[in-house]
């Protein structure tokens, strides 16, 4: 597990999502990256059930249950600003049993699917974010395997991302700022994905307000 940066690639002017993805993959292949299969990251939302809120009228918290094909035997459960739980895949079955406490928000499943590329010690994943049948955006993930401390290799990762994203290179993810010398973990990657998915969800709900 190396340091990972997840960002959103804006759709190019006058092109569809599919075409932008193709442009990106062509850039990567020109750089010399090798295709290495596919990946998938998905996310389901759960509300805390009304019956557990009690009389104080607290707002229901949202919980996200995510899977990542990079860690096929794990399941991640996160709250928006809270802790992230890493469990095994039986957690999904547990969620069914906890129907009384957590209810799934319908039509909230969002996922990104795409191809994986390997370039020396870097791993790049370019995926199309879909919610239901429609494509909503493009996610780009860059990982540098050898390093485990985010603050160490951010400049290195940035230089690599610039080489194929050009002007669309993102800034440092906020998760990097929170942990200075701590070892990077997969939960941080999932936090970044959660942030990305939420941004895309909000984009679709308020297209006027949230143009990127």
């Amino acid at each position: 597990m190396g340091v990972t940066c997840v960002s959103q690639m804006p759709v190019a002017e006058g092109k569809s999502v599919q075409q932008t993805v193709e442009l990106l993959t062509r850039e990567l292949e020109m750089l010399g990256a090798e295709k290495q299969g596919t990946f998938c990251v998905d996310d389901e939302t759960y509300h805390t059930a009304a019956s557990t809120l009690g009389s104080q009228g607290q707002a229901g918290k949202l919980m996200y249950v995510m899977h990542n094909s990079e860690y096929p035997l794990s399941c991640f459960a996160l709250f928006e600003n809270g802790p992230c739980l890493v469990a095994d895949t039986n957690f999904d079955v547990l969620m069914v049993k906890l129907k009384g406490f957590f209810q799934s928000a319908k039509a909230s499943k969002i996922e990104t699917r795409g191809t994986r590329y390997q370039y020396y010690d870097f791993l790049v994943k370019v995926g199309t974010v879909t919610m239901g049948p429609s494509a909503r955006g493009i996610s780009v993930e860059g990982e540098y395997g050898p390093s485990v401390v985010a603050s160490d290799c951010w400049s290195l990762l940035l230089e690599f991302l610039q080489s194929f994203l050009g002007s669309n290179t993102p800034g440092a993810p906020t998760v990097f700022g929170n942990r200075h010398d701590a070892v990077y973990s997969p939960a941080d990657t999932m936090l970044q994905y959660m942030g990305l998915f939420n941004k895309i969800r909000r984009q679709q709900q308020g297209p006027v307000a949230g143009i990127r």
Partner: protein
Amino acid sequence: MADVLSVGVNLEAFAQAISAIQALRSSVSRVFDCLKDGMRNKETLEGREKAFIAHFQDNLHSVNRDLNELERLSNLVGKPSENHPLHNSGLLSLDPVQDKTPLYSQLLQAYKWSNKLQYHAGLASGLLNQQSLKRSANQMGVSAKRRPKAQPTTLVLPPQYVDDVISRIDRMFPEMTIHLSRPNGTSAMLLVTLGKVLKVIVVMRSLFIDRTIVKGYNENVYTEDGKLDIWSKSNYQVFQKVTDHATTALLHYQLPQMPDVVVRSFMTWLRSYIKLFQAPCQRCGKFLQDGLPPTWRDFRTLEAFHDTCRQ
């Protein structure tokens, strides 16, 4: 076939000799036919015997004649050239079934290849001897009689001394921790952990550094039995590159009389890798070159360079 024959052979005499052989064969078979046929039917026994003997003698004379002719011709034919480089194995070239058993051509290729190899090895050993890589304190060229029979003292050090030196170096640098173990006899094996960047396994021979393997901080350095894994390479290309550089370093820092200074300098050099991912290359200013960060550290100044950028 053409390899064996040369212009020393008289081809005409050769053809004549072949026909002389045929003539000889037919006269010999006539002799045997005559014997097989036996005596012809004639009036008297004497007549039959005489006729038979005369016939037999004629046949033998013709055999004799043909044989002399053949001998004369064979002297004219001349010897095939003695020029095979492989002496007797050159006769393998006479094998007509070249497709299924190409022994002769393979044999020639093998000899040419081994001659070339010998030549190149000679050149390489000459060049390598100029750069002496022997790290023991023995002098080359001192005759066996004058050289002391005992091993140099730096090679046989008490393990306690080695432990002391290593623990002193461990305390020298705060971000570097050295763990010493002796799983295989008296050679020390060090596990050096440098911050959260990398781990180095150093195999030693008394106080000389023998081999190093550099792996990532999150990679497993133990085998399934829990022993230190000193053979498997890192999964990441950057650490494989750093392993090569570390091997170069351990050959560079040499001082047979004072091995603890050597170990100290090696560890100082290794410590510069704490900024492996943070330092840009001093020459080109970039972080990445061919997907690798600057992995070379200059031996004197400890500056970071890309492998392709170093002077």
